């Protein structure tokens, strides 16, 4: 287990370096955008004097590296600064919306991961059958359609024509948990449809890969039923690639939702990021991007650790 611990520590250290590099890239990418924040905030209506006054108030007259270092000095102590546009702290600006995004991602994941893996096992069992082909074609169709299009289709059938679910996924603190689940069902379903194919096909492929192994043949020869061969003998050895794909898709559920948010008017972090970029609100952009980057780093780390824990050879190296 010490090896696992040292891997975690090493990977977290590397992760911090990655975050630092990302923060530099983001800062200068925002700098490169045409126009500046003062112009974006005041719009066409501003005079030169307004702009100068606003730039002064926001501290935009310092050279770019100085501003970056100022921000970094705050960030390492956990202070991500204040939004340049509204003056609120970045944490209070992003916090509630990130919670919403996490909620939607978890909702989708709780449905998508079991469905995808169970479907993957079933199609591996019934490979080359009609069921296998239909499941493949359907999930591949979903993954090949853009999310907003899937969203519109779901709205058309489940909100406009049947009225089963609301088309707007607006939630607030006063709603009961069940009500929240009902309101966010369509966006969650959209995301489920988008991520299922990838996980299902990886499960199917990695199981089928193993089916040619001698120990599987042995199990069959001794008379183990087909479903048991797959669930008890093949699946445990197929976990590593599946976990990797699951982690990748979980990260996507958090970082790739902006279109779904827009279509269903869900108050998540994606819209905050888009607004912040259009206003050149660097501290908010930075915080959102770092959250996304950290999500990827942590989920990848979790995937690697999961792969080690499910593989006895890695768990007990000689």
């Amino acid at each position: 287990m010490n090896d696992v611990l040292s891997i975690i520590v090493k990977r977290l250290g590397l992760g911090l370096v990655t975050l630092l590099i990302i923060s530099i890239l983001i800062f200068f990418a925002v700098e490169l955008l045409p126009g500046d924040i003062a112009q974006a905030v005041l719009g066409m209506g501003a005079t030169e004097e307004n702009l100068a006054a606003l730039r002064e108030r926001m501290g935009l007259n310092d050279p770019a590296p100085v501003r970056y270092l100022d921000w970094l000095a705050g960030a390492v102590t956990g202070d991500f600064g204040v939004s340049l546009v509204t003056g609120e702290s970045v944490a209070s600006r992003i916090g509630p919306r990130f919670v919403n995004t996490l909620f939607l991602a978890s909702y989708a994941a709780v449905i998508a991961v079991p469905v995808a893996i169970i479907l993957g096992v079933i199609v591996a069992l019934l490979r080359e059958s009609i069921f296998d082909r239909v499941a493949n074609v359907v999930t591949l169709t979903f993954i090949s359609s853009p999310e907003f299009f899937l969203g519109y289709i779901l709205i058309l059938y489940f909100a406009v024509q049947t009225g089963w679910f609301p088309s707007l996924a607006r939630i607030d603190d006063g709603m009961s948990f069940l009500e929240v689940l009902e309101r966010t069902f369509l966006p969650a379903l959209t995301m489920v449809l988008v991520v299922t194919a990838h996980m299902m096909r990886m499960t199917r492929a990695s199981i089928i890969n193993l089916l040619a192994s001698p120990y599987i043949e042995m199990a069959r020869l001794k008379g183990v039923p087909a479903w048991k061969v797959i669930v008890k003998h093949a699946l445990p050895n197929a976990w590593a690639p599946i976990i990797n794909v699951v982690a990748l898709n979980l990260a996507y559920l958090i970082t790739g939702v902006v279109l779904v948010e827009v279509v269903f008017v869900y108050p998540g972090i994606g819209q905050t990021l888009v607004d912040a970029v259009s206003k050149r609100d660097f501290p908010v952009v930075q915080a959102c991007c770092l959250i996304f980057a950290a999500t990827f780093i942590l989920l990848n780390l979790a995937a690697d650790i999961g792969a080690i824990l499910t593989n006895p050879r890695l768990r007990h190296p000689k």
Partner: protein
Amino acid sequence: MTKSTTPESMERLVEAAKRGRVSRRAFMNYAMAAGITSTTASGLWTTTAAQAAPQKGGTFRLGTHDGNTSDSHDPGTYLSFSIIQLAHTYRSYLTLITPENDLGPDIAESWEATPDAKNWTFKINKNASFHSGKPVTADDVIASMNLHRGEDSTSAATALLKDVDDIVKDDEHTVTFKLASGNADLPWLMTDYHLAIVPGNEDGSANWQSGDGSGPYKIVDNQFGVGAQLVRHEGWHLEGAYFDAVELVVLNDPNARQTALVTGDVDAVTQLELKTLSLLQRSPDIEIDNVPSAAAITMPMFCDQAPFDNVDVRNALKLSLNRQEIIDKIAFGTATMANDFHHSPAMPYWPDDIEQRPYDPDQAKSLLKKAGAEGLSVSLSTADSVFSGAVDMCVLYAEHAKAAGIDIKVQREPNDGYYSDVWLKKPWCTVQWGARPTPDVMYSLAYKDDAAWNESHWQNERFNVLLRQAKSELDQDKRAEMYREMAILAKDDGGTVIPMFTNFVYARRSNVKHTGKLAASWQCDGARACSRWWFES
């Protein structure tokens, strides 16, 4: 006399008016086309509309476009439409635009000027109070105005109040604006969405942070970029505020807005997607309001730069545009034809007798020949962010201009930063202008010789003399005559091609009613739908 004069069609029209299906303007047009005099038609309208008496009650849910999570309560940085809609719901202004598109009282119950239009005195309505209960006084008004004045102001409205030398308190409920030069339009300027009245602090600064206001509805809960919940401010100083509560929902996606309206998740929405307008019109539960406005699409050319420095070239370009086709194909019919002067029929003093410039490639050709610029080739900068269909419009224009032997190269620019990198920098580009209340505001902003935004670099002595004279002229008739002459100058000498004034197109469910008269200053009845409309029970 046309076929539509049959009594049945008139009856249908009246029926449609009773059910709120036609606007007053459309009603008048149809009625007059049917041979009825304007007085009769107007009377007919009043009797039909009068049957729809406002009723109190209900929660009005309005889906608005253009909401941003970085919006704030600071009136100086109001910019997105959602915040403008909210501002007219929870705050008030000194004056307002009435549904008849006249100037009316809001916080100020009356106002008067000295004969030189240099000193304007506003009497504050004694019934006006903030949601906190505090009455609105002269100090609050002065604090609110000073937020937009002074060297270090970060308000986008500083330019508007540049001529105001001082604002003094005459008594608790009277303030006087002292101007450096006469301005007959000052009361109109007070309707600008930045100039909201906020409570003043002890030290004379403005307390905008609290989100307190003196408007018809009081904020209960608000999240910028998401939505706001408001309840009626009992004892509001004006007539209206029929809904018990109002919910503003930010719906940036046009499809989300329409779906929400169709499924009944909201009662009204702003800004419809024009491409699907004809589909939405089929629904019996939905009423569409199509209101001509003063918002314009312009194409300014730098008059001090070849080839635009030649007035014949400029006029040839103005003649090479088929405006009707642009309105039909780009605006889907929801626009009013413009005539190359930036003064819309929705603004006061509009001169209605100026001949419309036609699409005439032959005349354009001969003008070019006269200018020695045959086979003219120019580039026109545009971007899709200017307005939906901007690039298509320019491509269509280029096709029209081919008939006059002009080669217009449509230059597609990046959406991002268009107004900092293209507008005022490229010699010919497309621009979208929001509605301005009066011709003076518009001309002073973008056509005056020394204006920072003189987007066409146009210098015309007579125009500028008239502009200065008209500004302080309190005699309405003389003023109208001056604006008429200026319009002709701009049309025939100016450097701006103006294809159309865009309409405001928005929709409501059919149980939401209004008088049929809609202010044209903003979407949704001058952004005052929440206090002017009502539910039919």
